């Protein structure tokens, strides 16, 4: 079944390429340093419209830093070229350490409003639409963010990111806290968004099974670019060993 999806997706992508051959994202020789510490070095890759690209690498490999550079939140060397009509939705790993703020789900969405103070009718209407598309009931709107389960919280973050229909989604997967069943359905959801809305998805992932199953491309990162390409070709066991070290390889290969 995943295999069929994969084939279908390749066709879909070819169709898109006929109309817009330029990649939606083109990154050349990207380097980021914090002070004297080099966090990313000479990263180059490109992403076509409608693709799912996974970014993998050990802790501290600079994966989240790459996202911040892609969103132009930090300064960098090199070139990051997004296609001009790009709108980015971003799903962070977490929001806050400890919530002092009794924010409800609905209020969290309203914070995205372009209106500074007055009610944004259009936004309020689209909130329940987006909640439905991530598989949440409207009743969740009046709950406090801190009282949500990890799975619900992830979905709320995704719904927040896809509100106003961006065409690119940057998804920073949480390292812990989602059980395997929950994880599976989150990825199905991302896959559905990719299929139905033609969204381009960049995902920082910690689970190689997920990468093989869902990603069209994979970027292995450990400060520098270690591999890039189709998961089945680029992600050989030697590469994985190089990336995580031997112990981590056995851990992931179960």
């Amino acid at each position, binding site marked *: 079944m995943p295999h069929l999806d994969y084939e279908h997706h390749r066709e879909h992508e070819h169709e898109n390429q006929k109309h817009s051959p330029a990649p939606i994202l083109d990154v050349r020789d990207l380097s980021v340093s914090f002070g004297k510490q080099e966090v990313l070095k000479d990263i180059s890759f490109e992403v076509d419209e409608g693709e799912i690209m996974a970014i993998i690498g050990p802790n501290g490999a600079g994966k989240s830093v790459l996202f*911040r550079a892609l*969103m132009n*939140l930090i300064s960098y060397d090199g070139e990051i070229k997004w296609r001009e009509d790009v709108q*980015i*939705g*971003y799903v*962070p790993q977490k*929001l*806050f350490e400890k919530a*002092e*703020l*009794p*924010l*409800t789900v609905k*209020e*969290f969405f*309203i*914070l*995205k*409003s372009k209106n*500074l*103070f007055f009610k944004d009718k259009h936004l309020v209407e689209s909130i329940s639409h987006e909640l439905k598309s991530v598989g949440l009931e409207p009743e969740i709107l*009046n709950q*406090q963010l*801190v*009282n949500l389960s990890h799975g619900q919280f992830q979905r709320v973050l995704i719904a*927040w990111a896809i509100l106003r229909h961006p065409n690119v989604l940057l998804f920073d997967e949480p390292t812990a806290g989602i059980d395997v069943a929950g994880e599976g359905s989150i990825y199905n959801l991302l896959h559905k968004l990719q299929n139905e809305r033609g969204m381009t998805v960049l995902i920082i992932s910690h689970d190689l099974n997920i990468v093989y199953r869902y990603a069209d491309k994979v970027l292995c990162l450990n400060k520098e670019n270690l591999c890039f390409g189709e998961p089945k070709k680029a992600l050989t066991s030697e590469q994985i060993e190089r990336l995580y070290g031997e112990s981590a390889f056995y851990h992931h290969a179960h």
Partner: protein
Amino acid sequence: MPIDLFLPNQFLIILLSGLLAALAASFLGAFIVVKKMALVGDVLSHVALPGIGLALLINIDPIYGAAAFLLIAAFGTWFIEKKTTLSPDAIIGAFFTATLALGVLLVPNEELFESMFGNLFAVRFYDAIVIVIVSIIIFVLALILSRRLTLSIVAPDLAKSIGSKPDASYLGFLLLFALSVALGIKLIGSILMGALTILPAVSARNLSWSLKSFLSFSVILGVFMTGLGIIIASVFNFPPGPTIILSGVVFFVISLIFKKHD
């Protein structure tokens, strides 16, 4: 100072200025509490003192000296936090406490007590009008800023990802807070102003179930504790500043009883 020295409508104006200053302070205080910068907020208010001292030396209204120093300090706080990775608590705690010491040296003895603990009943009619107008402006601006500010506190990266500037909202917030502290100095003084901003918010946090209820409770409690404090102070001839803070503490204790166990 007994109130019967004032015309009745003058007392009303002064009461109103106290209530509106409390309205602005307690609304901003909600964000101070959420951002866990209660100490910063408290210590920032001490910066007013050398400003008051200098203003008295060059013979201008102390409130302007206080406002100028507070605005500079607010900008400094923002700048230090932006440029260094050091905890603002540590830097500001050390630096601004020094300004308190400097202030005590600069401010003449007879003015010192009033600067530190305030005296609402000594506020002149003209000052009260200024406090009322500026408080309303601060409150409205803070209300407009609140969505952006909340998002930048909850998730700075999300705020940036939708093109808003968390740095700018934070600076705006600090400047509004500085102005609000300056207004509160005549009312309850620089030492107690921190408490007026924090107390309503921490009490409101115990009672609230959403951002809206939190901000509303904070403002309602701030106005209520100030009103009650002023009335008690005028009836028993107490200094108003400490009376306001103590009535706030009573509300805080009551809010603990209603605290939701989550």
